[in-house]
């Protein structure tokens, strides 16, 4: 269930971050869970080492909110896999969350490196 409130920084930082990464990954086109997990890992230069399993509850949650949609398709290895794609609402969310993320990062940076 989405939490209401205007505060951009809350306790769900990590969880929110994962959501953001998933949404960003899906801007490139529909993908299944395995691809998404590896894409995140790869594009962050292996810095973000998440347990791939934790991706699935996040996918489930995002789908529940209507930000992504899913369908069964065939993978590169010719297997049935559940594909996810971004919905228009998800695209909006991604935009607004990215902005908020930038604000947050700048704020943290100002705190951590006040001299610069």
């Amino acid at each position, binding site marked *: 269930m989405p939490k209401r409130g205007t505060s951009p920084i809350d306790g769900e930082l990590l969880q929110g971050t994962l959501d953001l990464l998933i949404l960003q990954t899906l801007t490139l086109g529909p993908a299944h869970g395995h691809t998404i997990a590896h894409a995140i890992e790869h594009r962050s230069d292996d810095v973000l080492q998440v*347990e791939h399993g934790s991706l699935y509850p996040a996918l489930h949650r995002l789908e529940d909110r209507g930000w992504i949609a899913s369908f069964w398709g065939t993978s590169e290895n010719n297997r049935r896999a559940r594909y996810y794609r971004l919905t228009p609402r998800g695209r909006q969310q991604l935009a607004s969350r990215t902005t908020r993320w930038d604000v947050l990062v700048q704020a943290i940076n100002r705190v951590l490196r006040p001299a610069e």
Partner: protein
Amino acid sequence: MGWIRFFRRRYWDDERARELEAYLHEEISDNIARGLSPDQARRAAHRKLGNAALIREDIYQMNTVTLLETAWQDLRYGARLLRRNPVFAAVAILTLALGTGANAAIFQLVDAVRLRSLPVERPDELAELRIDSRGKGRSGRFISRRPMLTYRQWQEIERQQEPFASLMAWSDTSFDLAGGGEERPANGLWVTGSFFDTLGVQPSVGRLIGPADDAPGCPQPGAVLSYAFWQREYGGDQRVPGRTVLLDGHRFDIIGVTPEHFFGVEVGRAFDVALPLCSEPVFRPADSSLEGQMTWFLGAIGRLKPGWTTDRATAQLRAISPGLFRSTLPDNYVAEDAAAYLAFQLEAVPAGTGTSVLRGNYSTPLWILLAATGLVLVIACANLANLLLARATAREREIGVRLAIGASRRRIARQLLSESLLLAAIGSAAGLLIAQWLSGFLVAFLNSDQRPVFLDLSVDWRLVGFTAAVAVVACLLFGLVPALRATAAAPAASVLGSRGTTDLRERFTLRRVLVVVQVALSLVLLVGALLFARSLRNLMTVDPGFQQEGAVVVSLDFRRADVPAEQRRTVYDQVVARLAGIPGVSAAGEAFIAPLSGSGWNNRIVVGGELKPLLVNLNSVGPGYFRALATPLVAGRDFSDQDTQQSTPVAIVNQTFVKQVFPNENPIGRVFHIEDSPGEPNPRLQIVGVVADTKYQNFRETDVPIAYVAARQDAKLPPYVQVVLKTTTGLPGVRGGITRAIAEINPAIGIQLQTMDRMARNLLRGERLMAWLSGLFGALAVLIATIGLYGVMSYMVARRRMEIGIRMALGADRASVVRMIIAEAGRLLVIGVILGAALSVAGARSAQSLLYGLQPWDPATLALGAGLLGAIALLASWLPAWRAARMPPTAALREEP
């Protein structure tokens, strides 16, 4: 969110499992491509994914509404626990079933009598039209159970009223279905042509009475049957229109049948046959109510026009009242009555729940009974709370473990409450069944022989809602505190188990308080029961001034017997003589009004030109009357055959009459007369005898002055006569003789037979109901409270085994152990009894009007109640005390709690 997913969570779980499976396959393929062996590839893939089961559980949780899911778990767990403790479950459910059942049954009566709407179209639009403050100060003849208006008024109202789209009037009566001989009564209605239209009732067979049927002169009066009567008397014959029904010896064509649930407009009575109002003169040719200017016999209900409220309707009705009452003023009213009459104002009051005589009579008793059942339930809940506390103690270890491994207090409290809720739900469902049976029994109790009570007792949303509310309240009452207490204990202490000697003092306090509450409340109920029982006894043993036993009242209807008015005297004399000659009959006397029959006749009297300011009860009786009732003659003489229309008019009065009208004088020979109406002077009556005081209408009255006139001197005899018989055999022994004797005189005479005992019983049925029910509830309360006390004492003894063992090892003898325990119980009892006594005195005031011959604070009753309760309760605590004393000290000392 996921309501759909909630209901399809198993499907989604499978879906996710397949998805995770797909991930593993992909990862394994990739790993193999990277050169790992299949086995290594599989293990690496699993490592990468993490715990698949945990992931699925996470997702599963997201799909559930946790509260619902766990509530269901709790209920299943609770059910399992109850199944494993069948004795506890049975006791708890039975207690709750009795408690809620009693509540639901009484509520069902309250609902049926007071709350339920009439089963007609849009009942909220209906309003009753009547005279303000129920027309207090009216005089004249009152017949029917809703004597609100006269026919003349009705005609004027119908012409002048504006608020009602449709207005109807009705009167009730009793028809005799037998063509002669012993009567077979049916509940009759006379209705105006607008009756069924106004109510919006549709026929289930044929057609109903319409305006054309209630035409002047009544050319074609057709009868409408109730559904129940149609089933009972005509076997539900579809071709019943065209058949006929015999009412008081007159044959009427049946035109239709009303729907199954329609019973009329009076709650508590169901009609059998309805006729158009214009047919009334057929039944009362000599004194039709339609002609009587002072005959109040109609009730009126209308459907308000859209936009009209009862207030607005009342305003319009008030505006037309002065003119209306002026134009309908009876011709021979005395000035005083006329002034009251002209001041009357009409009003409209909501009538969606119909009218009811029962409602007025049984309102207070029903509310008192509802309060009593409420107390029973509270006692039952206190008892259950105690039981649950004991069980929670037994489950301390289990709960401690669960707390220790991380269950939250709220979660455990919720689980314990779910168990209580389960108990409450099962208990109230069983209670609802008990209620159905009990309320049927209560209605049967309210029945009198002549007038069966009809109440719609089908289960409706109100009853179910009430029972559910009772169940929830009960559950909270008995479940909440134990649940909170159980989870408040420190987990470590309960897991380790405590081996104390006098431990858990504090938890005891709560249980003691519960016992005190039970004792106090059950004393209230017990005292109430004793008060009602003693009132009933007082009423039953009150000396009515005549001998009820063996007395039979024979009511004869001569309307169909074709006896000319001038011959009635001769025929009535003949009837009395024949009845007196029946074997088993030792005396017979004619009476206009049989005592305790509910009928009455009163008026003011004039002595020496002075109007006395008291109402005197009157009766017109024949020579054998006082002998038949064994009422002693105190002075002077009885009526005799020498008192005729030609001789001096005479009267016999009772002792109270003498005390109030001729104090310290010899009444014999004095003259008085009943207040004259204009143009109708009453004869001057000479007192020839004084009889002992008797009851007139009911047992509760005291000091009623009665004057008896000689029936043989009545100038105008009605076509009815009653004869009181003194029999040695009772009714069964003389029934055949009576019907034969009357049939020989004239087979068309209608006969009703009733014993005086029966009439007295009918008169006291409200009191009997109260005595029985309050007795039942009182006994139930004492029983439950006793079980509660017993339980607490046993439990306390069990917890104090060690202490008792030590005391005995140190030399305390058995008697002192018993004394110690009994003293403990005694303290609780004393506090409870004192509290209960105070509550009883306060509570009994509300029942004052129902008591007879004793005060609500009657000390003897209080003492008796307290003594009874104390004795039973001490017995209940003696048993555990005795067991404790019998226990060998070594056993107690060695025992590990």
